[in-house]
């Protein structure tokens, strides 16, 4: 047939040259199927598809739609590739032949990078934020431009440090985009020297600043130094603007390096660098006025939305260029933070890091837990929380220094001597150590993740309690005349069992309280939540009181030799303040619960059943995890119903709840005089 050669010609000539570079295979060619497909489309009925047996409409819905900007990360925009962009002048070196404009543009790039970095910290991908900078993507190109080069180097080193902290802490499960660095040039040769390079540049600019100040005061300097840029009126402003930005970078890098040192050895130095960072950030903010006013051209648009201090758009950024590097997952449209918001973010981050650095590494678990809870109240972001977690849990030890069994030993009010007891090698005790470690890690995550994990965690604590109890009963079921060592073991078991119970109720309490912070309860459900809180708190108080009594016993035994002063005796017979504090909470919870129940019972307006779930179902939904872990025992929907159906306004007892709470609060205030956080909480309670 004559068709064969015709076809071959057609297939070679008709195809664009590019197609020829995608080989079909050795024995096959590409044949144009479009006419056939068109004919087939014409022949199909409406809604009819041509598909094979393995076709699944539901699965097909997950196909990436090409040319849809939300799904197609490879859409060709301005440039086909980074190299093409560079060839076309998207990232010129030097940025401008006019040194004044060059300097201003460099500052714009620095500011935009800060905004990108803040956006990245907030949870976007590195590729779309910091590495949308073409200069960063081809860092070696910037070598002739000392200022830009040193700045890019330190940015790269800083990003790498932050990625490693968050990866080590593994809190990035919450924000999965943070550590994605496929194909991004994060590892650079000689980045460890980035500080010295930066110092050199800083030194030069400092001398230029001195020189221009000297000129203005008519003094002569022996050095023959080239000025930073060509306009002498602007020299001082530009030098200052640059210096504070460079210094901020330097100190921030130092903060990260110091905080990384094991066992919290670098915390004090970190604090000094944090203070310097905050000072430099203030200077950076002040420089904005100068930068905006130094050029005649005014920038359009709202200055507050801009990502640079000067308001001009930065040169050399293109987020689409390496969107292909951020994996085939669909690209999310992101908005880079405004420059002002970026600075605010870093100020907050530094304050959060400062709180961490000023922590005294208290070996008492109870105070540590309170510290973490308090810290979380300021809603720290991912980077700060990762740092906290790494400080707390290192090398399987608390602060990298105290083995967890010793920590539990102390928390369970056992004497110092038992912390090295062999019993810690027992499987259950090893697991208990792991549980405490995981608890600390969970408490460092964000509120939503934390609550979810804590709910599931309750089951683990319950199981370990049962295991320990079983082991205890197996070994010491019959209490006979035991040797000294067995006595110690028994005591260890008893203390730890009690402590595990206390911890479990504490976790349950946190779980319920977090529900308030996350606004998970509707107002109609407050009554049952407070009621459950009340039930949990009663148990918690009971266990705490028992623990305190036990530790008091120990103290008493220790101090037997000393003469007991009457004050000591009086103190022992009183209820310890921590327990009273909890009792305050109990009164409040009970009072609120009863008040809400009474409101619901007396005033029909408050009792509006929802068309969706019944109250019983809601009860189960909220407290299922707690019930599964039997926390507390014998607490269920019927008992809730029982206690609340008869609540009435007329019950004066209700007012007594709040009065009791106030009274106890006053008593407790005196004992907590050196604990400002508890005082603040008490004041809130009183209101």
């Amino acid at each position: 047939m004559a068709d064969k050669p015709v076809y071959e010609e057609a297939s070679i000539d008709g195809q664009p040259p590019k197609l020829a570079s995608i080989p079909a295979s050795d024995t096959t060619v590409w044949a144009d199927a479009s006419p056939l497909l068109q004919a087939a489309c014409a022949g199909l009925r409406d809604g009819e598809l041509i598909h094979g047996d393995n076709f699944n409409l539901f699965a097909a819905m997950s196909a990436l739609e090409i040319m849809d900007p939300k799904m197609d990360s490879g859409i060709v925009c301005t440039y086909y590739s980074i190299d093409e962009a560079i060839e076309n002048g998207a990232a010129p070196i030097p940025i401008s032949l006019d040194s004044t404009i060059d300097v201003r543009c460099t500052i714009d790039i620095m500011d935009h990078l800060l905004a990108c970095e803040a956006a990245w910290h907030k949870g976007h991908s590195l590729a779309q934020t910091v590495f949308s900078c073409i200069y960063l993507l081809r860092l070696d190109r910037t070598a002739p431009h000392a200022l830009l080069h040193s700045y890019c180097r330190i940015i790269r080193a800083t990003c790498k440090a932050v990625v490693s902290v968050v990866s080590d802490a593994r809190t990035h499960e919450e924000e999965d985009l943070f550590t994605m660095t496929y194909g991004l040039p994060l590892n650079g040769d000689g980045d460890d020297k980035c500080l010295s390079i930066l110092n050199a540049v800083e030194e030069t600019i400092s001398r230029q600043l001195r020189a221009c100040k000297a000129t203005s005061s008519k003094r002569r300097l022996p050095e023959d130094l080239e000025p930073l840029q060509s306009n002498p009126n602007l020299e001082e402003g530009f030098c200052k603007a640059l210096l504070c930005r460079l210094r901020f970078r330097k100190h921030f890098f130092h903060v990260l390096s110091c905080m990384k040192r094991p066992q919290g050895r670098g915390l004090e130095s970190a604090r000094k660098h944090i203070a310097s960072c905050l000072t430099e950030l203030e200077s950076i903010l002040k420089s904005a006025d100068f930068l905006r006013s130094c050029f005649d051209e005014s920038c359009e648009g709202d200055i507050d939305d801009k990502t640079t201090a000067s308001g001009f758009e930065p040169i050399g950024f293109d987020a689409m260029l390496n969107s292909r590097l951020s994996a085939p997952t669909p690209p999310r449209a992101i908005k880079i933070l405004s420059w002002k918001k970026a600075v605010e973010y870093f100020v907050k981050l530094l304050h959060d890091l400062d709180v961490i650095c000023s922590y005294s590494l208290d070996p008492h678990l109870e105070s540590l837990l309170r510290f973490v809870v308090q810290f979380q109240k300021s809603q720290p972001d991912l980077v700060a929380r990762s740092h906290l977690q790494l400080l707390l849990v290192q090398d399987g030890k608390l602060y990298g220094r105290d083995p967890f069994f010793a920590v539990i030993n102390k928390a369970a009010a056992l004497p110092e001597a038992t912390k090295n007891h062999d019993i810690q090698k027992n499987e259950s005790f090893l697991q208990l150590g792991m549980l405490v470690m995981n608890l600390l890690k969970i408490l460092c995550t964000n509120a939503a993740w934390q609550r979810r994990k804590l709910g599931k965690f309750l089951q683990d604590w319950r199981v370990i309690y049962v295991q320990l109890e079983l082991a205890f009963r197996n070994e010491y079921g019959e209490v006979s005349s035991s040797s000294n060592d067995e006595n110690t073991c028994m005591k260890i078991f008893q203390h730890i069992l009690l402590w595990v119970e206390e911890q479990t109720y504490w976790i349950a309490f946190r779980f319920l309280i977090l529900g308030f912070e996350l606004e998970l309860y509707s107002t109609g459900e407050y009554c049952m939540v407070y009621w459950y809180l009340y039930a949990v708190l009663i148990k918690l108080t009971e266990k705490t009181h028992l623990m305190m009594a036990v530790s008091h016993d120990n103290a008493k035994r220790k101090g037997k030799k000393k003469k007991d002063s009457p004050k000591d005796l009086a103190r022992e017979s009183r209820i310890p303040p921590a327990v009273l504090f909890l009792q305050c909470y109990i009164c409040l919870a009970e009072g609120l619960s009863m008040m809400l129940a009474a409101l619901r019972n007396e005033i029909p307006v408050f009792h509006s059943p929802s068309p969706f779930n019944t109250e019983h179902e809601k009860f189960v939904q909220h407290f299922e995890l707690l019930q599964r872990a039997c926390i507390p025992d014998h607490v269920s929907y019927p008992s809730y119903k029982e206690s609340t159906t008869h609540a009435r306004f007329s019950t004066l007892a209700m007012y007594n709840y709040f009065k009791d709470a106030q009274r106890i609060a006053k008593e407790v205030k005196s004992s907590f005089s050196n604990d400002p956080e508890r005082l603040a909480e008490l004041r809130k309670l009183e209101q």
Partner: protein
Amino acid sequence: MEQEVGESLIQLGNSDGSNSSSSDPVTRVRKLLFRRMLVGIKDGRFFLGTFHCLDKQGNIILQDTIEYRSTRRSSPCPMEQRCLGLVLIPSSCQNSCHVDCSVEEQLSLLKV
């Protein structure tokens, strides 16, 4: 010219009904399922994948797709590629569509 050849081939196939049992285009396209297909789109990229689905509007779904793109506007240039999985290529952005087949098959399949 390619278009004419293609169309004439379809007509040939239609008139020559006795040579094949199924001569309508829909059945013929069904035979192309699971074959490697190369779709070019308007911004210059190419998608190579297994032909999975076609609808009346001409939208194509490919499986195990690889995206090819050139790194420069001008050719010749090296091509970059990456794997995408299941993709839907709307008919509005399609530029070309080729199927991988042997030289002999070229005639029989696309004709028949």
